[in-house]
């Protein structure tokens, strides 16, 4: 029961964060919001594993944490350089 209450708190926070990704004035606000949403979904999956008493969900949470980080860095890099790596002219675009 208490785990369900904790999960409800996380879901409410996710809704609050989602508002910023919808109204956010520029792309950076949206990336920030989606990154935080990802962190909150890691928490939600971990708590859900305890609600349902199925510890396998922690593996999913770990995978979500990995994908969330890679995704944030990739989108930030794409927005900054309009490219995911080396440009057509062989010029290294730099790491972010």
């Amino acid at each position, binding site marked *: 029961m*208490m785990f369900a209450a904790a999960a409800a708190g996380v879901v409410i926070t996710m809704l609050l964060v989602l508002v910023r990704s919808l109204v956010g004035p520029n792309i950076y606000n949206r990336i920030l919001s989606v990154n935080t949403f990802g*962190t909150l979904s890691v928490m939600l999956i*971990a708590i859900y594993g305890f609600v349902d008493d199925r510890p396998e969900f*922690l593996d999913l949470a770990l995978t979500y944490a990995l994908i969330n980080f890679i995704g944030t860095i990739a989108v930030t890099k794409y927005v900054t350089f309009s490219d995911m790596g080396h440009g057509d002219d062989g010029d290294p675009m730099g790491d972010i």
Partner: protein
Amino acid sequence: MLAPILDALSWIFIIAGIVFCLIGGYGIIKLKDFFARLHAASLIDTLGIGLVFVGLILQAGFTLVAAKLVLILIFVFFTSPTATYALARAAINHDVLPEVETDEERELVRLSKTKEARAPQ
């Protein structure tokens, strides 16, 4: 004998973590400029997930579940500041600047851009 104490302690940690999450979510909506919102988001990424996971570890006891939770926690503690840093650098290099009042602060904002971004001016 120890079990009820650990249980109560874990719930205190989890509730504190959820409260920090709600405060962070409110801050992301309410605060005025991008860097202030970044500050609110980092509250969720550190204290929110940290306290909730410490509470879950106390619930799990000394098991494989606790080890996995520790792994996730360590990973998030390393990656979340990295992502925040990359995002703040990208934003400040693309002229999303903090709202400041004095000249001294404006000079600090200008200096905070990286060398490549400052060069064209």
